[in-house]
């Protein structure tokens, strides 16, 4: 496997377009091993410089694992992940708990459907919105005021997206997937990681999700990293693309550059798309 020719990108090629901003996340020497197998090995990677970035690669390349290493849902075997806040402050995410990472504004949606079985769609959204000062065992009142405060926000999402019954449970797989993404958006993340957001979603909902993501990114509210197998979406949406294979980021650049590169054709398109 390691004999395959790869172009590792510890420093991006000079041909990259002008850098549009400072990175939000910097990964240094990040590896993840399961048993004896290294599933992610990233000497250096900067994320969040370009608004919406794509992360592509064949099945099992380690894309989901890489995202989980960022959010600390999975602890790295080695290496550090540093978050650069808008105010210039730097925090090491590696070693933090996953919930602390989310509270820093780094939030990930799930590839595999995840839901809270006992919460309705609206309750799930209220959970995402509830501030920690409301979540104490002796805070027994103020539910009505909280619902009133949250109503406008929740309604904008309910109007925008197609939920059959907001006061029922998410029924179909598509609704659960959509709710998962909406929960993430409700947290107002500064860095959003979307893991195959279109898988299982009807095309109309996918379009609406991507439209909202583009709006928020254009407004400078957040940067985004998207994993997708729908490459047309990647080429259309992303300003920058990272290509992963066998645990390593072997190629990065603009969509045009990545598309044109022979490595991609050989390692990805060649195997699964032709």
């Amino acid at each position, binding site marked *: 496997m390691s004999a395959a020719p790869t172009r590792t990108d510890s420093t991006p090629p000079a041909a990259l377009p002008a850098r549009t901003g400072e990175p939000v996340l910097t990964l240094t020497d990040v590896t993840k091993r399961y048993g004896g197998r290294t599933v992610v090995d990233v000497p250096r990677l900067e994320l969040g410089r370009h608004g919406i970035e794509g992360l592509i690669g064949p099945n099992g390349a380690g894309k989901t694992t890489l995202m989980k290493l960022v*959010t600390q*849902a999975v602890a790295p075997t080695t290496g550090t992940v540093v978050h650069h806040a808008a105010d210039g402050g730097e925090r090491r995410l590696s070693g933090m*708990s*996953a*919930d*602390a990472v*989310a*509270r820093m504004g780094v*939030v*990930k949606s*799930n590839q595999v459907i*995840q*839901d*809270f*079985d*006992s*919460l*309705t769609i609206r*309750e799930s959204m*209220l*959970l*995402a919105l*509830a501030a*920690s000062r*409301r*979540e*104490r*065992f002796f*805070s*027994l*009142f*103020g*539910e009505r005021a*909280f619902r009133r405060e949250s109503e406008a926000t929740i309604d904008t999402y309910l109007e925008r997206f197609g939920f*059959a*019954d907001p*006061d*029922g*449970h998410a*029924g*179909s797989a598509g*609704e659960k997937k959509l709710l998962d993404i909406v*929960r993430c958006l409700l*947290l107002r993340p500064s860095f959003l990681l979307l893991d195959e957001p279109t898988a299982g979603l009807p095309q109309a909902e996918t379009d609406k999700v991507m439209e909202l993501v583009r709006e928020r990114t254009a407004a400078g509210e957040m940067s985004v990293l998207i994993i997708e197998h729908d490459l047309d979406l990647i080429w259309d949406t992303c300003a920058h693309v990272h290509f992963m294979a066998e645990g390593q980021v072997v190629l990065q650049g603009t969509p045009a550059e990545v598309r044109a590169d022979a490595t991609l054709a050989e390692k990805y398109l060649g195997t699964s798309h032709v």
Partner: protein
Amino acid sequence: MDALIFPLSTLAIIVCLGALLHLQFGQAGIVNFGVVGFSGLGMYLTAILVIEAEQPFGLALVIATVVTGLVAAALGWLILDLDNEAVLVATLAFATIVWHLSTTEDQLTGGVVGLGTVPLPFDLGDYRATTLAYLGVLVAIAAALVLYARQVSRVPYGRLIRSIQDNEPLARSLGKPTFRHKVVFFAVTCALMGTIGGLDAAVQQFLVPRLLLADTTFVVWIALILGGRTRVLGAFFGALLTVGLFDIVVEQYVEVPREYSLLLPDLQLMAFGMVLMLVILFRPAGLLGDGRKRRAPGAAKGASA
């Protein structure tokens, strides 16, 4: 009527513990199989402080509650990020340790000889009136716990603890410090189990280690599972149908031939076990069912579609 005050007080105690177990297991998903460990710790601490240290009952109860809560916080911190099986075994082991201490630390506890007498915390002059008033206090506390459970299930904190039970990693990914919440909630609810145990000390009046055997835990669990673990009134209905039926109706009003009366406790546990198995087989959400799921028509259909 007088003969009913003691069993009704015991019933109220079981309902209180059941409401607390509903909060722990029904709402937060914490598998506490050591209920009697926490109530028993509170019971013995209260009694020791009242009898050996000659402290007033109220102060003893507060100290017992706080100490039980601190012990639960330490235990919770050690075990609450383990899986359910481990939590079950660890809490069961904790209760066994508390029982063991009650037999070995006999300078304090009186060992198997027993510890007594714990007086009722107030005296209305007439013994019957006093015990009746104390029963009233226990019923009021049971009602307060049930009301708390109902209210908390409707506010952000209730959604939070349910989300932890449903899918803890997902709750964590939304920024909820789930481990800290579990430890705090476990400590508070176990502290209250200690309070209930302390109040029970005055009902029992004479404490023997047998009171700390797992029977109490089983009875509370059976009541909750029978009634419905996710229902606020689950433990109440379950306790009525188990403890209420056996300890009150059968023992008070059914003529049992003398030679069988010794068998009664064993028959009772066997019957409880049978009922529990039938409920789990045929009505796993308990007799009251799972109210939440019913409110969402079509959810079950949609999920399988």
